[in-house]
């Protein structure tokens, strides 16, 4: 579903935020993108969604290059950013209507989706309020609803669990599973290793712009020859990368 080939990106020409990475996200899987702060997760996601242009390399979404078939690619995914502070002066229902119109969601389907999603995320009693009056978690939920309104083939979520209450986090995880089981794809970045461990079919660990590992949790355990938790293996990977990257 997502293919990245030798993709690099640097800011200001000096530090490489993403350094020649290769990544394959398959259709029908939940793929977790893990890494410490500043590892290159958000930069990678921004390149996949077309917010940033890679310095080199190719990115294909569902076999299409976003630089060549921008609108078709953009219609195929729903994106939830790491910062949910969008259009605070609009009312929630106005934002959803905006998303519905932009993604051309048919009227009947739209009503159904708004009702279903707002009830699941307990926002149905706050739709007439301005986003400005929402808490961080409520904004996050609204962003998720907006991104899923057109029922996209691919979900791209940047730190989606941040600020969510336990019930909403559970609902989201459940929806991710249902989505993947129905043949669609979920690609998300997270710091919460427990979540990744529980729901991801495969994960990639990125640090200092390089992919350190890509595979299932089982693959990782086999590689490390241990039955440790994802957290233990993640820390070992990242520490090893830091030691290898540090000048002696």
């Amino acid at each position: 579903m997502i293919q990245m080939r030798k993709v690099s990106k640097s800011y200001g020409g000096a530090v490489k935020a993403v350094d020649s990475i290769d990544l394959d996200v398959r259709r029908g899987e939940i793929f977790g993108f893990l890494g410490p702060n500043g590892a290159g997760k958000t930069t990678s996601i921004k390149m996949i969604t077309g917010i940033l242009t890679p310095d080199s390399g190719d990115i294909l979404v569902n076999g299409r290059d976003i630089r060549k078939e921008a609108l078709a690619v953009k219609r195929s995914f729903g994106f939830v950013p790491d910062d949910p502070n969008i259009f605070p002066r609009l009312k929630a229902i106005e934002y959803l209507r905006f998303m519905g119109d932009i993604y051309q969601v048919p009227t009947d389907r739209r009503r159904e989706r708004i009702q279903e999603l707002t009830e699941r995320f307990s926002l149905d009693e706050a739709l007439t309020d301005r986003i400005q009056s929402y808490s961080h978690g409520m904004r996050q939920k609204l962003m998720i609803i907006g991104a899923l309104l057109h029922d996209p083939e691919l979900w791209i979520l940047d730190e989606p669990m941040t600020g969510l209450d336990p019930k909403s986090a559970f609902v989201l995880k459940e929806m991710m599973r249902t989505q993947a089981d129905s043949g669609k794809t979920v690609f998300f970045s997270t710091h919460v290793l427990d979540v990744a461990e529980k729901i991801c079919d495969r994960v990639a660990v990125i640090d200092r712009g390089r992919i350190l590992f890509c595979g299932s949790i089982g693959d990782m355990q086999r590689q490390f020859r241990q039955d440790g938790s994802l957290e233990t293996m993640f820390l070992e990977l990242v520490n090893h990368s830091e030691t290898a990257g540090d000048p002696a």
Partner: protein
Amino acid sequence: MTNLVRLAVVLFRGSGTGITAGSGRRRKRSQLGNILLFLFLGIYMVGIMSASSAGLYSLLAANGLQDLMIGLYLSMGTVLVFLFGILYVISVFYFTGDIEKLLPLPLQADEIIGAKLAVTAAWEYLYLAVLVLPPLVVFGILSQAGAGYFLFLAGVFLLLPVVPLCLASMLVMLIMRFTPLARNKDRFNMVSGILAMLLALGFVFGTQSMARFDEMDLAQIISAGSASIAKLTTTVFPGTSFAVGALTAPDALQQLAQLGLLLLIASAAVLVTFRMARLLYFKGVVGVGASAARRRRLSSAELSKAGQGGSAFWTYWLKDVRILIRTPVFFMNNVLMNFLWPVFFVLPMLTSAGGSGGSGALIELARGALADPDGRGAALSLVICFVIACFISGTNGISESALSREGETFYIMKIIPMSWWRQIMAKVTAGLLFSLAGTLLPLVLAVAFLRPPAWLALGWLAVLPGGILMPNLGGFFFELFWPKLHWEHEQKAVKQNLNVLYGMALALLLAALLAGPAVALGLSAAGTALLVGLGSLVVAAAEIVILRRILPGRFAAIEP
């Protein structure tokens, strides 16, 4: 006092240009281009002000009235500082993003206000340096004033904006004191802005009309010498007459005394403002950004309505219009400003129309001039109408800040499945709507008062499309190169955004290039309408072609 200075330094550091487009070398090149453009604009505006004031000087000097110039420019400066000050003060004191960070700190209200006043004053000085200082320097050069004049001019320049800015601050603090009582704070804040602006305009024009003189007075004043006229024009604000005195008094000692009085009044104004800040500021600013929530479930009818599909273009347009109207800073600076200039143009006309004798005759004279299809009056009125359309469209800053207003959420424009061209056209259309409304207001009043023949009224309408489209499209170019996306508060996107100034300069330049030949060649009304109306549409078409060509590259280069 130490806190005040520290805070002012922090606020100054935070009020940089923050321009972003691309990265690395490309960004440096963009910033260099921006600096060059800024210098060009500064020189261009200073040149225009200097040239026009030199012309005015020779006109006045022929009648020995040259001292009048000082009073005129100083009072114009104080009025500008006061009116712009109202908008600045509301935004900077109450709606900037730093308020919520400052309120929990152990700072006194007057320390916050003092620091914010300093930042506001810096921008006012910039306006004065471009609009008022050049004419006063020209006066000094042409009147062969000595070094003393320029020394006193420096003192006057530093003190001039203090009183009007303090008055604007006091007026705003007084009105905003009642914010916590309002249920819908955003709406109250907007109404407060409008009320403050109306009060300010009423104050300015009220005092001006008190100082107005009829033909009999004028004769007496001329005989009494030009200095007394200068005093008449400076009754608007306390202290302005001392500023005039500091530059026109016959000897250095008297000039020094006048400057001392100005300093005294300015200091008193600052002290009173600080005192008022202690009494009123916290009571008004606490909770100013809070938004009321009703937490109400949508009825099935409402859900049906909300769920109805619509055009992506109009939804996008509506989103932009809603944000413009609902965000107090955008509303004050872009929407309200749009209707402020028409009031400037129209109010003097209304007051003179209400007058008797000479002023009533003036309206009759204008009506006569407009009725003749071959006369210069009709042609000139078309030029004026066109220039007003360009001016209002160029100064409201809506298209000129269309990308900057998105701020950090600019990335939304990149991820939604709507072509960049359609998004930009939706944004320009929002600018067109407000420009049209702002331009129609003085036009309708002009039709009501001047009662032009139908063919001329239609001619006025005919020059509008180009006069509105051309500046709105032109203003967008700067945003594509230097969008100001990294800001903590909305003020920076619209007021501390040089693209708005560039857009205004381009609008005025293009207006001058089209209207200038029409006036210089003495074209008839039909010829003028063709040249400016059609010419501006041709320019707009060229702008569309260029925009379409550069858009993909420029948009891709903008990396939030």
